[in-house]
């Protein structure tokens, strides 16, 4: 409406530091940033696999043993775990299961998924390495 322009409305911008305003926003922002590490790690891993594909398994393992790569992998592991945990939690929030009178809580989905993660990882390691 034309008339309203006589009395300007106050428009506010989101400040660059908005995500520090509360814990939930911060956790969200950290989750979004961790995806960068997940992506970087994937690229590195694909590069490693390409070494194997074009050369030998030793090339691949040597590449992975590089201290810089080991360091980065460790950092990426921590972030991936955080990233995975937040999504496991969200899975529980978005798809709660109804049992009797009550619904499952998101943290229950988180715990269940983490247990599944450990079991599946162990199986994978057993299949590929230990066997």
């Amino acid at each position, binding site marked *: 409406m034309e008339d309203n322009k006589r*009395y*300007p*409305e*106050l*428009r*506010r911008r*989101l400040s660059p530091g*908005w*995500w520090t*305003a*509360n814990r*939930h*926003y911060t956790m*969200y922002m950290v989750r*979004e940033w961790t995806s960068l590490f997940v992506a970087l790690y994937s690229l590195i891993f694909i590069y490693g696999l390409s070494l194997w594909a074009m050369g030998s398994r030793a090339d691949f393992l040597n590449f992975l043993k590089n201290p810089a790569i080991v360091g980065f992998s460790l950092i990426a592991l921590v972030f991936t775990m955080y990233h995975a945990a937040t999504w496991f939690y*969200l899975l529980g*929030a*978005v798809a709660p299961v109804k049992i009797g009178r009550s619904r499952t809580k998101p943290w229950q989905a988180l715990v269940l998924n983490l247990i599944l993660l450990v079991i599946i990882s162990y199986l994978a390691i057993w299949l590929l390495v230990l066997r």
Partner: protein
Amino acid sequence: MSQDIATIRVTRYRPEKDAKPFFQEYKVPYRHDMVVLDALNYIKAEIDGSLTYRWSCRMGVCGSCGANIDGEPKLTCASFLHEFKGRTITVEPMTHFPVIKDLVVDMQDFMEKLVKIKPWIIREKETPPEQGEYKQSAKELERYSQFSSCINCMLCYAACPIYGLNEKFLGPAATALAYRYIEDSRDQGKEVRFPIVHEMEGAWECTLVGECSVVCPKGVDPMLAIQKTKILGATNAIKSLLMPRGGR
């Protein structure tokens, strides 16, 4: 119930007088069962008649008294003063919305979005009342009932940084309400609503911050509704890919 004194700091912005907003501080005596809205009413009645804010039902039903209290979007009628004992309480207009005056924000954008999702039951053909009502089982009701508790207070928009960054985002309440009708067994308007919730700035703009569901005063979970909308959209898209000729 003894009386204490609360210090309350309220945003003032009067477009006819002030170029910029500022805080004004008031001292309000209160009892244990008094809420922030009671304090605002006390100020308006006893100290400063020009303080401007909206309210009506004072029981969490009308959805008009939302504000940011110490930075968090809340209904002023549902925030006890005693919870802030010993601290100054800061009351600001809800985040993201343009401010008309003091605590009053412009709701135009939300109102347009609300109308856009067609918040009513759509029937391909209305049956006359003589043929009876459109029946629904308790189970069918449960599929959407929590989303029908929305009071349009807009706190979820104030809590949503995505909406803060992109005003075009359809946002939590409107999407949740659209989902409420999509899931209603009596509704036949899926074809009309699907394109609205799945356009560029619809449900897919949501990146799961989740704060909308935290601040909702009525226990509605808009984040859940948005994700379910995405799931419905995705399964629909796959179905129509696999069975292009109306395999619904």
